C-alpha cells in the first residue's frame, strides 16, 4: 500500500520495549503520539485517521518501534520493508 487514501483509518502501535524515547514521533506528529514515562505511546491506537505525519514518524523512528496498519485488515502500511531497509 503506497497511495495514501485520506478516507483510510489506521491502527497505530508502539513497541515500548524497543522505543528509545527519542521523541522524533512526538515532534513530527504531536497529535498522534505522546511521551509517557520517557517512552512513546500512540494517542489513539485504533481508527486513527490517515495522516502523512504519522507515516513519517513510523519511517523515521530511529528504533523502528512504530507500526501503522490498515484498520481491521492488518496490512502493514509503515514502515515499509524496503529493499535497503
Amino acid at each position, binding site marked *: 500500500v503506497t497511495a495514501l487514501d485520506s478516507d483510510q483509518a489506521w491502527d497505530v502501535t508502539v513497541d515500548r520495549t524497543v522505543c528509545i524515547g527519542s*521523541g*522524533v514521533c512526538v515532534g513530527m506528529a504531536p497529535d498522534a503520539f505522546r511521551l509517557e514515562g520517557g517512552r512513546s505511546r500512540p494517542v489513539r491506537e485504533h481508527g486513527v485517521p490517515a495522516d502523512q505525519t504519522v507515516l513519517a514518524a513510523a519511517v523515521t523512528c530511529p528504533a523502528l518501534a512504530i507500526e501503522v496498519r490498515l484498520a481491521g485488515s492488518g496490512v502493514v502500511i509503515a514502515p515499509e520493508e524496503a529493499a535497503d531497509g
Partner: protein
Amino acid sequence: VTASRLETELPQPLKYPFNEESGLAIDPGYAAARARDGLTRVQLPFGRPTWLVTRYEDVKTVLSDSRFSRTGALGPDEPRILAYMHRPDTLLNMDPPDHTRQRRIVARAFSQRRMERLRPRIEAIAVELFDGLERRGGPVDLFEAVFRSMPTLVICELLGADYADHTRFHEWGVIMGSTEASRYTQEDIRRADAELRAYLAELAELKREQPGEDLMTTLVQAEAGESPLTDADVVGLAWSVLLAGIGTTTNMMANSAYLLLSDLGNMRLLRDRPELVDSAIEEMLRHTPFTVGSLFPRVALEDIELGGTLVHAGETVLPSLMSANRDESVFADSGTLDLTRSQNPHLAFSHGIHHCLGSQLARAQLQVMLRLLVERLPGLHLVDPESVPWRRGVTLRGPSALVVDW
C-alpha cells in the same frame, strides 16, 4: 518575527560558553543556572544575546514543541559558538514540513534494520584496526590509529565514498567546526564548505552513473521519487551525514577511552563485567560535556512561558543538552560517572525531530570499539597521563591524541 522588548529591559547576559576548551569538566555555571529562577541570559561569541535553557524538562520542551523554530533562529543574529553561519538547507536547521520530507528519505539508510546489517562490517573494520595495533605494538596514538579511522571507514562505506579521501574529510570537518578561537578564517571556512559540496556533487554524479548499495545512491534515486530531492538537497544531506558522522563519533571514542584510561577502576570494572559496556557508553554519553557549549538555538514563534521566564515571540532560546544530562531531579548523583547506571534517559543525541539521525550507528561503533579496547589489550595505559593534549578552536571537546602502550 521581531523581538518585542529591548535588551536593556532584560538581565545583563553572562558570557558564554562557560566550559574551558581543555579537559572534560563541566562549568559550575550550569548547576547555578539550573538552580536559578527563570532562564539565564547569555551572550555568545556571535549573534545576539539569548536565553540559556538548562533544566531537563525545559530542554525537552524546547526540542519537542513546534512553537520553537530552528529555521527561524538562523541568520546573522543567530547566537552562535560556531564561526560558520548555519544554512537553512541543512537538515538540522529545517522545520517541518521540509524537515519531515527529507528526514523520511534519509532515515531508510539509518534504520535499526540497516544498522544491524552494517554491524558485522563495523566489527570487521574494528577487528582489522586492532589487529594492526597488536602487530605494530605500542606506543601508539589511538586517536589516529582507531578513533579517527574507524568512523571514517564506516561513513565511507555507508555513503559510498572512497576512504582514500579521508585526509580531506578530516580537514574539512575541523575547519567547519571552528570556533572564535580557531586559527581558520571566514575565508578558510567558506572555501572548505565549497570544496566539500563540490566533492559530494561529484560523488552524486558518479552514483547516478554507477549505482551502488549506499546512501548516496539512495539519495540520487530519490531525485526521481514521489517527493523528489533536488541536486542541492542530495548534496546537503550527504554533507550533513559526513560532517555529523565522523568528527562526533571520533571525539566520543576518544573521550570514552580517556575516561577509562584515566580511571583504572572503571577500566577494571568493564574488564570484569564486559556485559556493562552498553550501559557504560550510555553513561559516558550522559556525563561527558563533549562540546564547549550549546550549538543550536530556537526562536519562539509566540509568547511562551518556559522555566519561569516568559519568552517573547521573536526571542531565542538555547537548550543545553549537557546541562539537562546533569539535572539532579532526573539523574541521582548526576555529577558521578556511574557505569552501572541503569535508568539513563539522557539527551546526548538531542530529542524530538532533530534527534541524531546516526544515534544507532554511533552506539554500534562505540560498543564495538570499547569492547575490543577492554578485551584485546590487557595492561593498556596512557604513556603520559599528565600531559594529554586537548582539541582547541573547535566546538567538540576531547583529547587530540591518546598515546598508549600495553
